[in-house]
Every structure is written in C-alpha cells, then in structure tokens.
C-alpha cells in the first residue's frame, strides 16, 4: 500500500515559510497516495523557479530541465515510455511566459500528462519581478510603470481545445487534491492552474484576497464543464469573483495513442536491430 511516507521529503525544502507551495505539495502527495501510484511509476518534469523545485522535495523519477521547456521534455519522455505517469510542474513564468508556445502546442497535441502551474502572479526565485499573470498595473523593479495586460491562461487553454482544464486555490488542499486526481486520471492533457499566494513578493494577491473572491463552478447550478462557451464565459471572470474547479473537459484523441510505433509496447522496450532495415537499402539501388 502506498502511504504519504513514500512521498516524504528527499532533501530539505528551501521555500519561504508560509509559501503556497507547501499546501500544493501536500495536496499532490495526497492525490498520489489516494490513486495508489508508487514513486517509481511517476516521472516529474519541471523547469526553473520555486515551483519547479517541487520534485526534489518528494519521491519519483525527476527530470528538472530548463526554464520554460518542461512540456517538450515531458512529451519526449512520455513518447519514449508511455507507461510512465508524467506530471509537469512549473510556475507562471515558465508556463505562461518562457514556455507559452510549448503550452499551446502541447494542449493542441493532447499528450496524456498533467501540468501543474503554480500561479502566484509574480517571480519568486528571481525576487519579485512581474510575471505574465501579474495584474494590470502591478509595479515591480522591472515594471516601474506597471505590468501590462496579463495572460489569461484559461482562455488560451480553451482556444487550444485543452482536453482538461481546472483552476484551483492553494488555500483549499482538499479541492486541489481532488482535481489533481481527476487530472492525473484524465486521458489526455490536463492543465491545472493553481492560484498560489506568494508571501514574500506579492502583497496584493494574498490568501485573504483570494479567499474573498474564489468560488467553485461545481457549486453553480447548471454549470456544465463540457460546454465550451460557458467555460469561455467563466474564463473571462477575474476581479470580484474568480472561478475555481473543473472549468472544461473534452474527450478527444491522445497524441501518443495514434503513433503506430507505440501500439505493441513502449518504445523503450523495443529492441534495436540494424538487420531489419535491408528493405530500406533496396530503395536506393
């Protein structure tokens, strides 16, 4: 039986006291234990930033690559061994700034993986600069005139026909854990945007600020997460009311399931045999 101990810290944690990341890692551990996933079955892929350190603070296979390049590395890994459960972890800088092109492409392809984005609307690791999701006018050392119009990750995901789209709040571990489980179990790409207060650098979007605003779409009567137009309407909401929960879900073909080479077994299990290519040489004779 898998227990929380299996996902205990492997090295000392270097996050600030009170950081939303502590709640997120707790929710993730709970989700993995509930799903009875063992650490060797999972591959965490991350980039750079405070969020991207998370895989080091638990147990699993880890590819901690470059800033913004989590999704390409995760895609390559998933195709090489599609039996691995692949979870990508980044912050808003890596996911919605440096790596946004990869995010759009990966959602379009519908690779079967889960992508957790710790969205604290500010850069933590580099100490307090504006992020792609900082609110309009957010003043930092690099944006003295105020940040420009923020990225809307939910709307972008819907435009790319992401097959699973959720937003969660780090202040609600139970809810986050439930949606992480749904995302991991979903067949296809699951984007989980996690609203996460940064206690050191974001003094606007605090726990209190979020608590006053977030509401669960599943509590709204008649909300249908397969209705894309309704999902778009929710994606526009930011201010007095901020929707969390399962925003959108759609069944559609998974990229790697359509690859002929993966039909029989994983690529990594397939033998290398140079002699099988004689027919290819014939084409040049």
């Amino acid at each position, binding site marked *: 039986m898998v227990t929380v101990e299996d996902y205990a810290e*492997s*090295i000392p944690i270097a996050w600030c006291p009170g950081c939303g990341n502590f709640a997120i890692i707790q929710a993730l551990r709970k989700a993995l234990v509930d799903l009875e996933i*063992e*650490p*060797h*079955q999972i*591959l965490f*892929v991350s980039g*750079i930033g405070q969020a991207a*350190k998370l*895989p*080091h603070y638990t*147990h*699993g*296979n*880890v*590819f*901690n*690559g*470059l800033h913004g*390049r989590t*999704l*390409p*590395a*995760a*895609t*390559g*890994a*998933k*195709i*090489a*061994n599609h*039996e*691995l459960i692949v979870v990508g972890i980044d912050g808003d800088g890596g996911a919605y700034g440096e790596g946004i*092109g*990869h995010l*759009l*492409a990966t959602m379009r392809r519908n690779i079967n993986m889960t992508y957790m984005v710790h969205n604290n609307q500010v850069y933590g690791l580099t100490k307090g600069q504006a992020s792609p999701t900082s609110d309009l006018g957010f003043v930092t050392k690099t944006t003295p005139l105020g940040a420009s119009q923020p990225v809307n990750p939910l709307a972008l995901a819907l435009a790319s026909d992401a097959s699973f789209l959720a937003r969660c709040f780090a202040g609600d571990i139970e809810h986050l854990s439930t949606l992480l489980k749904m995302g991991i179990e979903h067949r296809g790409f699951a984007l989980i945007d996690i609203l996460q207060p940064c206690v050191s650098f974001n003094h606007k979007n605090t726990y209190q600020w979020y608590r006053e605003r977030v509401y669960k779409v599943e509590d709204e009567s008649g909300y249908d997460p397969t209705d894309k137009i309704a999902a778009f309407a929710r994606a526009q909401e930011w201010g007095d009311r901020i929707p969390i929960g399962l925003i959108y879900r759609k069944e559609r073909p998974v990229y790697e399931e359509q*690859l*002929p*080479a*993966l039909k029989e077994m994983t*690529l*990594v299990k*397939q033998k*290398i045999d*140079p*002699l*099988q*290519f*004689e027919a*290819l*040489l014939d084409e*040049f*004779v």
Partner: protein
Amino acid sequence: MTSLLNVMVGGEAGQGVQSVGFIMAKTFTRGGYHVFADQDYENRVRGGHNFFRVRVNAGEVLALSKELDILVALNKETIDLHHNELKDGGVIIFDQEQTKFDAQGERFFNVPLVRLAEDAVKNKLMTNTVAIGAAIGLCDYDFDLLAAVLREEFERHGQKITEDNVSAGRVGFDFAREHGAQRLSQQIQPLPGINKRMLLNGNEALALGAMAGGCKFISGYPMTPASPILEYLADKVRHYDVVAMHVEDEIAAMNMAIGAAYTGIRAMVATSGGGFCLMVEGLALAGMTETPIVVVLGQRPGPATGMPTRTEQGELWFALHAGHGEFSRVILAPATAEEAFSTMTKAFNLAEKYQTPVIVLTDHHIATSYATVERFNLKHVKIDRGQLLSDEELSQLDDYIRHKVTESGISPRALPGQGKTLVVTDSDEHDEAGHLIEDAETRNQQNLKRLRKLDSLKFDINNPKLHKVLNAEFTLIGWGSTYGAIREAAELLKEGGIAANVLHLSEIWPFPTEAVSSALNNSAKTLTIESNATAQMAQLIRRETGHKVSGNILKFDGRPFSPEEIVDRLKKEVF
C-alpha cells in the same frame, strides 16, 4: 582528372531540373558506373535558375568537375550562364523554337523538346523527360535502363503518366540517335554484370544511418538543408518502430529529444545553423544532465538567414563552443555519403557510451549531393549502449544514483520506470543522486566528472585520413565535405608534376592532436582548404597542436569547391 562524362541539366525552378537530373544519375548508376551529382538551386519554388550536374566515371568519384560534355538547356539562361563550361567536343541540347536562340555549329544540338513532347504524349510538362532521353541518346547509352528508372520514379503517379514519360524519353532518345549520332566525342555503354550499388545523397545516408543505428525518435522544425532527414524518418513511422515529430520550434525539438533520450531511447534532432542557435541551451542541458543526444548540424552560409540553399563550413567553432558552461562533446564531420552512414551509427554509440551530446557536422553540399556507394552492410553496424544497466544488474544494486562519481566520469545508467529505481537529474548543479546542490566540493566533483569523459573519449576518435606521396611539397588539409574535391585536386597537381599530401579530418572533437601533429610536423608547406572566411580548422590546429599552417584556400561564396578551382587558386595564391 578522370571522368567519362559530365552532364548538366539547367532550367528554372518548376521545370523539374532536379527530378530529371536525379533520373539521369540513377540511369548511369544502374549501368555499373559511379556517379557524383549535385544540385544548385535558389531559395524559391518557381522561376530563377537551377541546375543539376552529373559526373559519371568507371571508378569512384567524389567531387564535381567544372567541364561539361553535355549541357541540357531547358531555357535560354542556362546557355548564357554555362556555355563556357562546355569542353571541346561537348554538346548543348536546346530547343530553338522555345528559346528563340539562333545558334549554329557542331556544339549546338537543336532538339524541338516541347514539340516532341506535345506530339508524342500531348503534355508539355514532359519536355524535361524528352531532354534527358536526348542526352542518353547522344551518348549512345541503353534506353532500357532509362525506361526502367522512369517507371520507378513515376509509378506513384499512375500508369498513364508513367508510360507517357517513357514515351517522352523514347522520342528524345530516337531524335538524338537519328540527328545527333556521332556529334558527341564521348560515347558510353552500360558495363556488363549486375550492379547492386546505391545512389543516395548525404541526408539520405544520415537518415539511413540513424535508422540502422537504432534511432527511435526525431523531433524537428524544417530548415534547409536538414529537413529531408526529418522527412525521411517521418515517411517510415507507419512501418518501423520510430516516431518523427514536426514540432513548434527548434527549442521544443531539442528538449523533446532530450526528454526521450533521458527516458531511454536513441533520439536525435537535425537542423541548420539558425535552428541550432535555438537548440544551444538544450545542448548544455544534455551536457549537464548527461543525456545522450545526437544533433545533425547541416551548415549553410550565415550569419542569420544567410543563403539558405547554398553551402559553407562556417560553424566549426560554433559547434565546438555552443552551449554555456563547460562539458564534454563529440564533433564528427563525415567526408562522403558513405561515411555519413557509418558516422551516424557511431554517433549514437558515442552518445550513449559517454552520455553526452554528439554533433554530426555536415553542410549543404554533402547533404544534397548524390554519390554512388557500395551497398551498406548492416551486419557491420554495431550497437553499443555503454553503461546502460540491464534489469538484472539494476536489481542487484542497493541504492541507485544517476550521477555517481567514477574514475572514467561515466556513471551507470538506469532508466525511469526500470524497476523500482528512481532516476533523478537536474539542470542545476546536482549531487550524485541528481538533487540540486550549491556546495563547492560537490560542484567540483560533478564538473570534473563530466569533463573527464574526454580522456577516454579521445581513444574512440579515428585518426584523420592521410594520403601521403613521396617528396610532397605540400600537405593539403581539409575537413568534412571537401574531401573529394581536395583528393582530386591533389591528383590534378600530380599530373602537373607537383606532389601533395592530403590530410583530412572527419572526426574533429576531441581533437586528434597527436595524429595531426605528426602528419604536419614533417611537411614542407601546409594549407587548409575550407569553405569559410576565417580558416576555422587552421585556427583549431594552431590551438590544439601549436602548428601554424603556411596558408589557406578559403571559399565562402556559397558554392562548393571543384578540384580545378582548388588547383587554380593554389597556382595563383600560393605558388
């Protein structure tokens, strides 16, 4: 310089110059001859001026010649630009009705190409097939060989188009036999016996080498001259265990291949300089995470977009130093299409054996030139996956750590999902277990471990080719695709009474210092011949051996060297 026949087909983009040029090259290969063929084309889909040159010889041929026996001119511009390249006794095939070019004399052979195509098959598009039929007829070659190649090449377009092309070739052939017999001084007939040789270009050889070498994943973004490698593997995904992904950009391509390689399959990318620029951060990632990855870097003239459809060797230093920080790498630069195949299989072995990136440095010239080669022997392809642990070996380890410090610098490699072992790696500096660290001692140990791989790697690097002659006055030094032209230049010099050695590097990094030093230390004069403006190999030789070469023949106009040009420039600039 020995060659039986040199033919050029010229016309504008869209006239099928490349297609019929290739058909001609294949027709001569089928007849038992060795062929070297290249294409010169502009960065456009229609219009402009394109040509395809085919050099035919009884023995091996590795370069082009400037002198033509037959010029097949599909438009007037081809005559204007290339008539000077015709040898005495050579012939220009042209269509007077179409070009409105009024030329007299033995060298001009007027063939009403368009009218013959319309009369025979009612299809002007087959004018080019009429033209190669005429060229084959002029040399008194075997039409059946041409017909067989035409049938193979057009088969996928259906029976009518196939047979119409054969008919079009036939009318051209018959016209030449009837009106042009004996016009050409050079006649050739197919050689007896069954010929099993292959005709392929460098890109195709690289792609075949990748398949045979066990590559299971390629991710890429199209860029001349490397796109055909991605296209070749993509063409095979239905029937072989390989995945080819055309992705959003080169950054994705590189990181995807690295993710696949980390997970345990042989993976590669192929690009040109501009795309490689985008991949460079990933190259350092592969160095840091000790991930085996093969990169084909097909050079073309730079900087920036440069000249997309032309050739250059301007990225030797870029390949040497690409990536931030210091890490081990391998640079291989195949000299011929034949070598391109074996280089790729070796590249995958070295990448896995040393768990580090391998760059295969080619250029537009080798990538797109066709050569006749002996059929590759797949039994000679060896697969060496280095210290990849078997399931059994792994199960005997108590505690697996990915980046274990060892004497060789190479750590035993396990794969994520292989047993209960966890495989942890990081682009941050990390400890043996793969977790990020900042302490000085661990940093030193890991950095030295990664660099130490070069100590044993250098024994896996082949010495340069050295062709020595008695009393040599010069040693001509080259690398990569210039091999054929330099070899033939040395032969031309010999015919003129000048003895020259040739030293050629196909495996460049780690640098074969001792072999290069000993080859150059006893040479009177040493010259590098390079397709770049800054003599990058000469600089590298100086840096690694202390030897200062006597001079350089440099060319950076985007065109490949011909043997004659090397000799001419030696005479003008050096003698």
